[in-house]
C-alpha cells in the first residue's frame, strides 16, 4: 500500500511496545514531515543509546562505561543498598531525593508463570556484593505485588543469615488519596504497617 521506505519505517515503529499499526503509520507520517536535521538527530540518538549503553557491572543499572553514575559517586552512604526490580525503578527512587545509598537492580522478580526463578535474576551478584562489604542495611523495594512480595521474602531468607539488616519499603495509601476510596487490601496493609507517633 505504501512505498517500500515508508512501509519499512512503519514496520520499524511496530516493533515498539504498545504501538499498533495505526499508531505506527501516524508516527511514520509525522517523521516524514519533520526537518531532516531532527530526524538525523533522532536516528543518531537511537543508535548511540543502543551502542553506548550497557549495564553497570556492580548494580545492574544502565550506564555508559563500566560503572553507573550512582556507583561512581563516593559521597553516597556505602552502608545501605536498595534492591529494585528494574533500572527504571532507580529513577523513581532517585526522584524522592530521600535515599542516599546505593542500588542493586535485580532485573525482574520471581514469577514462576513466566519461568523466572532466582537463577534468572541478579541474586548471585547481590550475594557476592554483600560478602565482605560494609553494607549494614538492605532495603527491599520490589513492587508490592505477588511477584515482588515473593522476591522480597526469598531475598530476606537468603540474606538475613549474612548478618545484614533487611528492611522492606512500607505499603499504604498514596499521598492525597481519600480513605473512603481506598481498596480493602491497601487499607489492611496500611493498618498492618502503622507506626507510633
Amino acid at each position, binding site marked *: 500500500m505504501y512505498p517500500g521506505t515508508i512501509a519499512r519505517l512503519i514496520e520499524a515503529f511496530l516493533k515498539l511496545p*504498545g504501538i499498533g499499526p495505526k499508531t505506527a503509520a501516524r508516527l511514520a507520517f509525522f517523521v516524514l514531515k519533520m526537518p531532516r536535521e531532527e530526524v538525523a538527530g533522532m536516528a543518531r540518538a537511537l543508535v548511540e543509546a543502543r551502542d553506548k549503553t550497557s549495564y553497570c557491572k556492580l548494580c545492574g543499572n544502565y550506564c555508559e562505561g563500566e560503572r553507573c553514575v550512582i556507583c561512581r559517586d563516593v559521597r553516597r552512604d556505602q552502608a545501605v543498598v536498595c534492591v529494585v526490580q528494574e533500572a527504571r525503578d532507580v529513577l523513581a527512587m532517585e526522584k524522592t531525593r530521600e535515599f542516599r545509598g546505593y542500588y542493586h537492580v535485580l532485573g525482574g522478580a*520471581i514469577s*514462576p*508463570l*513466566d*519461568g*523466572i*526463578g*532466582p*537463577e534468572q535474576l541478579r541474586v548471585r551478584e547481590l550475594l557476592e556484593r554483600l560478602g565482605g562489604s560494609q553494607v549494614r542495611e538492605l532495603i527491599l523495594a520490589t513492587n508490592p*505485588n*505477588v*511477584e515482588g*512480595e*515473593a*522476591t522480597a*521474602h*526469598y531475598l530476606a531468607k537468603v540474606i538475613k543469615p549474612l548478618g545484614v539488616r533487611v528492611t522492606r519499603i512500607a505499603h499504604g495509601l*498514596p499521598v492525597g*488519596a481519600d480513605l473512603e*476510596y*481506598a*481498596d*480493602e*487490601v*491497601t487499607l489492611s496493609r496500611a493498618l498492618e504497617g502503622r507506626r507510633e507517633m
Partner: protein
Amino acid sequence: MAEWKDYGLVLRSREYREADRLVTLLTRKRGLLTGVARGVRKVQSKLAARVEPLTLGYYQLHQGRSSLATLLQGEALNHHRKLCSNPLLLAHAQYFCELCESSLPEHEPAVPVFSLLLQALTTLEAETQPARAARCFELNLLSLLGYRPVLDACLFCRGPGPYRFDPPSGGLVCSRCAASAEAFAVSGAAVAVMKRFLELGFYRLSVCRVPAVLSGEIHRVSRVLIAKAVGKTRFKSLEVLHSLTEGH
C-alpha cells in the same frame, strides 16, 4: 453488550498497553476468560490489588464485541497471602493455575475445576509438603478432564500386581499381560496413594504420608497423562518449581 457478576480466581495478570493489565480469570459460571483491567497500573487504581494473581474475588465484567471482556469492578474475598510469602508455595500455586489455563477451553463452565483449584490453594497455604498437594491436584484435575487413571487392577485381565503403568491405555497392566514399550513400573505404595488422592481429594491430606520417592513415582504417572490431556509437557512454573526445590 452484556454485563454480569461472577466469582473468579485470577490465574495470571500481565501488563497491557500503557497502564492496563490483561487478567486471566477462572470464573465459576463462565469458566476461563481473559479480561482487560483498565488503568490498574496507576497508583490511584482501586482495582489494582483485586486483580493480583491468586486473588479470589467477586467481579463485575462487561463483554463487548471484542473477545476480551472488561473488568469493571471487583471485591477481593481471599488473596492467599501466605502463598506469596514463600516462593516455593507460590511456584506450586502458579503451577496449578498454569495447568488449569492450559487444559480448559475459554468461555465454558468449569465449576468442578474452579472448586478443585480453590481447595488446592487453601490446602497449599497450610501445607508442609507442597509436593503432596501438587500430586493430589494433578490426579484430581486429570480425573475431571476425563483422564482418570485406572488403578483398581490390570486393565486387561483384572489380575493382581506387580503392575506397570501403561501410558497409551492410561492404566495399570500386570506382568503377565503385554504392555506397550512406554510402560514403566509403579510400586504398590504409589498405587495406594494415588487411589487415596482420587477417592478423598484434599480431605485430611496432612495425615497422608508421601515420601519424595513416592511423589516422584506419582508425578511420572501424572506427567504422562497431563501430556495426553493438555498436549504439552513443558510448564514454565514447573521448571521454576524444580529449580527452587533443588535449592532447598
